[in-house]
């Protein structure tokens, strides 16, 4: 990367993109760079560093939204929210350590661009569901906005959805507005020990199909559980299936009891309170429980499948291969880790996921592997055409993060 | 909604009334969802909202009805499910009645259609003629293959065995058991007394047991609903006037009706004759006395229970009961009070396809509705099916029997027969 542009205002971003479009100089767009290793390596000489676009612009707790510069750190936002007992309900994951960097990094723009979401995804949605509006500069070198500050808004196409999860390939966000929500008064976790993967899927389906408003349902096979820093989890020597319950105090107690009764049936059940509970879900959210994963270069896949198919897909991919998994989202999200191979086993992985219905993303692998193997679910036919045409419409010169999602796009 | 009638058109009280109704419709479309024909066909043209709009255009234009408009209006069952759903209380019933009259007056139906309608209008309202026709149909059954289209259907529909006429249906007065609480007239009706004489018998037993003196009035006959729904306004009014006169003479506190289709019509006599200076007031008074039998029993209570271990009952609410008269809870409450476990089928708001003469005039749609209804009723799982309208009763019994005459599904009886049984009457036929 020969050059880094570091704009400090939206106008400077506009200038930079205009220049890049005119001179057809591809830009690698970055916030703090915490997720640079996510996706394909960008084919660009020049880096557009947005880390100057920070600061909370407008935060009105009673209106349940916040507007902030795109590169405002999640840490800053979370601190401001905490003061008002609020939170970003979609729990943006901190993938810093997983991706081989530092923890506690990441910006709001990055979380939205990657459409990250933590365990609460099953209840409240992903970043896309909390992203209300933005100002951005498209690859055409034009400023545009979409959405607003209110939750209920159907005025025009919902471009926020398009931008969330587009990995900076369509537009450079300069300012974002997102929904914030009250933080729960109390959080507890119910643990069921010793379930097989298949039985865990059933237990999670039962809990999520109940009225107990479970806000996290994860299953850690024994090896994954062992990696937890929560001694109650690591020390059981068995698999751990975890259910998170949040809300006003009396309600949480009531629902934990109800869940215990619902899931008990002979299995041993325990509860985690406050700090231990928070730590466990942090570990799950940030993907810190992968078996034997000390940053030792193993490859990591993220599989999204219908929840009840989770165990079946994992069984196919782990049986006799040395790969291992843990599950979030009631079984619908599988984190798979395996020994590094030149093709990351992508054909096998994708075949299994396709049969179950879903998609797979290669989250961690060497840059060469990520450039050889499709990182995101490959598209064919009409889907591929639409994707290409959208890119063409928003970034006709292909200057924004070219190749980040799909080779040549 | 906006209408475009001329002042001259509005001078006609019937058009004026239609205009008032049309203006209340805001075209929200809620009615489409609960309309049986829209549920089947998914076409706005066969929905209440579509029909209202077509009727508006028909009446505004002042032109004769066309074959297309007639097709869609004819498909309406007049089940009035739309009126239960309508949040704006659009009086669809009187609007579609108006359209039917306009069609009858301005549209020349093809001759086989005309013959069929004339035949139904002549035969059905008269128990004597109807009984004769059924016997003829029973004889004709072996030759049905030779009959044309819908006539073949009619013959198939006719029961193999026609019960003998009941003594109950002759003009007379039944004394109340014990203290007389009320003097009521019973509409003995037309088709019902031929097809199921046991219903009137059970009704008389139950009413007298509950302290009613029951009058079967001389001169009362068919309520007029059958011809009314064919747009034969004059014939319907004539039948209404005959009934009004008969019940006035009988000097009763209530007119009890045990076929909800008839009840809906009699309760509407006031509207039917409102522009008739001689009859308007009298019609309104009789309409005000009309009660479904379930309303009267609800008022008087079912009485002492004599049967135990009664079967579970799936209750089919007739459209004329729930939508026409707004009686959804009363019959179920009575069955429960009499000791029956009451079950309700899914899609209870949808018509079974009987709808007066609909199953004879629109056999294809009626058949599809029946099939759907029978499935839902079977799934509800009661050992008996009860309903308060003879049309539904025969239609559903036919559907359960698969049209072969062999009854495979649960027996179908009138609600009142069950109440009578639970309180001292005989067990209705067909219940094991």
């Amino acid at each position: 990367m020969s050059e880094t542009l570091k704009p400090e205002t939206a106008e400077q971003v506009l200038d930079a993109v205009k220049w890049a479009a005119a001179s057809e100089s591809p830009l690698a767009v970055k916030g703090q760079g915490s997720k640079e290793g996510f996706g394909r390596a960008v084919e660009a000489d020049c880096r557009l560093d947005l880390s100057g676009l920070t600061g909370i612009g407008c935060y009105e707790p009673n209106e349940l939204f916040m507007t902030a510069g795109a590169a405002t750190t999640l840490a800053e936002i979370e601190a401001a929210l905490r003061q008002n007992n609020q939170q970003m309900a979609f729990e943006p994951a901190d993938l810093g350590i997983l991706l081989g960097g530092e923890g506690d990094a990441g910006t709001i723009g990055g979380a939205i661009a990657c459409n990250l979401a933590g365990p609460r995804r099953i209840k409240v949605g992903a970043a896309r569901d909390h992203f209300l509006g933005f100002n951005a500069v498209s690859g055409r070198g034009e400023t545009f906005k979409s959405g607003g500050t209110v939750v209920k808004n159907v005025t025009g196409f919902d471009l926020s959805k398009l931008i969330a999860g587009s990995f900076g390939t369509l537009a450079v966000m300069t300012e974002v507005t997102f929904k914030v929500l009250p933080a729960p008064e109390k959080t507890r976790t119910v643990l069921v020990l010793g379930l097989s993967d298949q039985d865990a899927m059933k237990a999670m389906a039962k809990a999520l199909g109940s009225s107990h408003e479970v806000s996290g349902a994860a299953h850690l096979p024994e090896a994954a559980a062992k990696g937890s820093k929560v001694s109650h989890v690591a020390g059981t020597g068995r698999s751990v299936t975890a259910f998170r319950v949040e809300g006003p105090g009396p309600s949480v107690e009531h629902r934990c009891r109800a869940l215990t009764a619902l899931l008990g049936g002979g299995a041993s059940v325990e509860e985690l309170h406050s700090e231990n509970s928070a730590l466990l879900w942090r570990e799950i959210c940030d993907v810190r429980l992968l078996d034997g994963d000390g940053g030792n270069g193993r490859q990591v896949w993220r599989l999204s499948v219908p929840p009840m198919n989770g165990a079946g897909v994992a069984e196919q991919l782990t049986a006799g291969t040395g790969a291992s998994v843990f599950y979030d989202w009631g079984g619908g999200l599988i984190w798979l880790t395996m020994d590094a191979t030149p093709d990351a086993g992508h054909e096998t992985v994708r075949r299994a996921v396709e049969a179950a219905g879903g998609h797979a993303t290669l989250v961690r692998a060497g840059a060469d592997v990520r450039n050889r193997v499709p990182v995101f679910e490959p598209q064919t036919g009409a889907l591929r055409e639409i994707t290409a045409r959208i890119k063409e419409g928003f970034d006709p010169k292909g200057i924004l993060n070219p190749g980040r999602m799909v080779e040549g796009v | 909604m906006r209408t475009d009638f001329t002042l001259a058109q509005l001078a006609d009280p019937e058009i004026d009334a239609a205009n008032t109704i049309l203006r209340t419709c805001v075209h929200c479309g809620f009615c489409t969802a609960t309309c049986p024909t829209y549920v089947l066909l998914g076409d706005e043209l066969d929905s209440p909202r579509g029909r209202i709009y077509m009727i508006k255009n028909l009446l505004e234009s002042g032109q004769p009805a066309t074959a297309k408009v007639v097709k869609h209006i004819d498909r309406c069952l007049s089940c009035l499910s739309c009126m239960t759903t309508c949040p704006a209380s659009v009086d669809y019933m009187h609007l579609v009645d108006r359209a039917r009259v306009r069609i009858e007056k301005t549209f020349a139906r093809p001759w086989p259609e005309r013959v069929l309608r004339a035949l139904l209008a002549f035969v059905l309202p008269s128990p004597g003629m109807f009984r004769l026709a059924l016997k003829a149909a029973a004889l004709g059954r072996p030759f049905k293959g030779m009959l044309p289209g819908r006539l073949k259907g009619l013959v198939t529909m006719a029961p193999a065995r026609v019960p003998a006429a009941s003594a109950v249906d002759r003009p007379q007065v039944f004394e109340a058991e014990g203290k007389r609480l009320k003097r009521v007239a019973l509409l003995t009706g037309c088709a019902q007394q031929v097809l199921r004489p046991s219903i009137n018998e059970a009704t008389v037993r139950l009413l007298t047991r509950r302290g009613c003196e029951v009058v079967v009035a001389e001169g009362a006959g068919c309520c007029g609903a059958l011809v009314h729904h064919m747009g034969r306004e004059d014939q319907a009014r004539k039948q209404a006037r005959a009934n009004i006169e008969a019940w006035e003479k009988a000097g009763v506190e209530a007119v009890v009706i045990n076929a909800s289709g008839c009840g809906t019509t009699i309760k509407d006599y006031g509207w039917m004759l409102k522009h008739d200076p001689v009859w308007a007031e009298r019609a309104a008074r009789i309409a005000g006395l009309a009660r479904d039998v379930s309303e009267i029993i609800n008022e008087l209570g079912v009485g002492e229970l004599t049967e135990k271990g009664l079967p579970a009952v799936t209750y089919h609410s007739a459209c004329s009961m729930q939508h026409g008269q707004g009686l959804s809870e009363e019959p179920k409450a009575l069955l429960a009070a009499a000791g029956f476990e009451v079950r309700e089928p899914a899609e209870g708001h949808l018509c079974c396809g009987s709808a007066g003469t609909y199953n004879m005039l629109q056999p294809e749609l009626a058949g599809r509705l029946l099939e759907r209804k029978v499935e839902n009723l079977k799934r509800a799982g009661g050992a008996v099916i009860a309903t308060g309208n003879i049309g539904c009763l025969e239609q559903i019994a036919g559907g359960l029997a698969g049209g072969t005459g062999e009854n495979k599904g649960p027996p179908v009886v009138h609600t009142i027969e069950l109440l009578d049984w639970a309180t001292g009457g005989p067990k209705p036929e067909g219940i094991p």
Partner: protein
Amino acid sequence: MKMPQPDAGVIARRAEIIEAMQAIVLGEGVITDEEELRVYDHDGLMAYKGLPLVVVLPETTGQVSAILEYCAANEVKIVPRGAGTGLSGGALPLADAITLGLGKFNKILEIDYDNRTVITQSGVTNLAITEAVEDEGFYYAPDPSSQIACSIGGNIAENSGGVHCLKYGLTTNNVLGIEMVLMSGKIVHFGGKHLDSGGYDLLGVATGSEGLLGVITEVTVRILQKPETARALLLGFPSNKSAGNCVAAIIGAGIIPGGMEMMDKPAIHATEDFVHAGYPLDVQALLIVELDGPEVEVDHLIERVDAIARQAGATHLSVSRSEEERQAFWSGRKNAFPAVGRLSPDYLCMDGTIPRRKLADVLQRIEELSQQYGLRIANVFHAGDGNLHPLILFDANEPGELEKAENFGADILRYCVEVGGVLTGEHGVGIEKRDLMGVMFTEDDMNHQQRLKCAFDPAHLLNPGKVYPTLHRCSELGRMFVHKGKLPFPDIPRF
């Protein structure tokens, strides 16, 4: 309202087009007679009407695909239509377009309780989904007022809301996948029973696209287990301002009610006259706050809301003690439109969303406008998320009243945008708010939206004349005015 000039060439080919449609859809599914077409001349918005070229009612995705393929090849426009309950005129026919009705797509295809999903055809009504799963205690959360009749496909096209979306989200948050037929006739699937997608979020952009991107034929939604209990509070206030403050205070206390609705005085009186819900008549504003969840939680929150309401100056407080009473509290609100409809033969329903804190302001402005225009108004309001439904009462039989009502409505929406809100919260832009888009968006904003359209429907054959005041040709939108080499390297800090 100006619609695009119909293409005389297409109209001239009508007979040929009809023949082609009849080859694809047999029987009554192709409607061509004028008096039958007339029935399709508008949707839930009665203010604008127009006859379609022809109406086609296909029954299978294959037929939809064949129709669109033919139309793409022959440059025939398509106006998709669900249940025709939309309030923004999104299904208003065009003289040179086929109205493609999905009324026959009315089957529920699969219920999967373990994965908590239902797959249905797109013409199935919103309520039918809930009815299909309620025996097992489940429901589909978004509940627009027209839920009895509106189709799930239409819900997706408009991204419908409802009274419970404050807590449970809009359509876009509850739909997992769709099958869509593109204008080319190609059938695509976005999403499924799994979460999120492996590329651009095309499911997300299709939601709320008002029939401009494709024809939705199949839908996968997520279903939820019903809360254990729900209870409602009825709170009366002496002013709109105090009611507005109460709403803010409830949210500020960290409580997200299942529903939080507000009515102003005219709406309270109209509904009370109509359904006799037991509303207090001596108040200026009424709030219905519903809390749901386990009984202990509901009891706990009711106490807190009660205290907040007293603090905010509520003069009437009652809490539902039974399910019947809760339903009664809601009956007025749910029947507000027809109740208001009884006051006047016609009404226009506006749909702006505003920041909650501006509530009293906006109501004040609406009142002033009402006097200025000489038209009565009643307000119902999804207070929890700031979505306002002013109902403008008028009589379409009076010459000039519709125009007056439209101008009044436009002024309200302009004010909504002025205070930081938006033109439409859940009804869609359609034809009704099309010409106001410029109040909220710049030309560049709209052009970027239209570039998305170009990716799906480059010839602009799907539902033209809706949403955007001017639809630019895709070739024009694709052009880029850059002057190679003339732009200097920007003056930005660099390293």
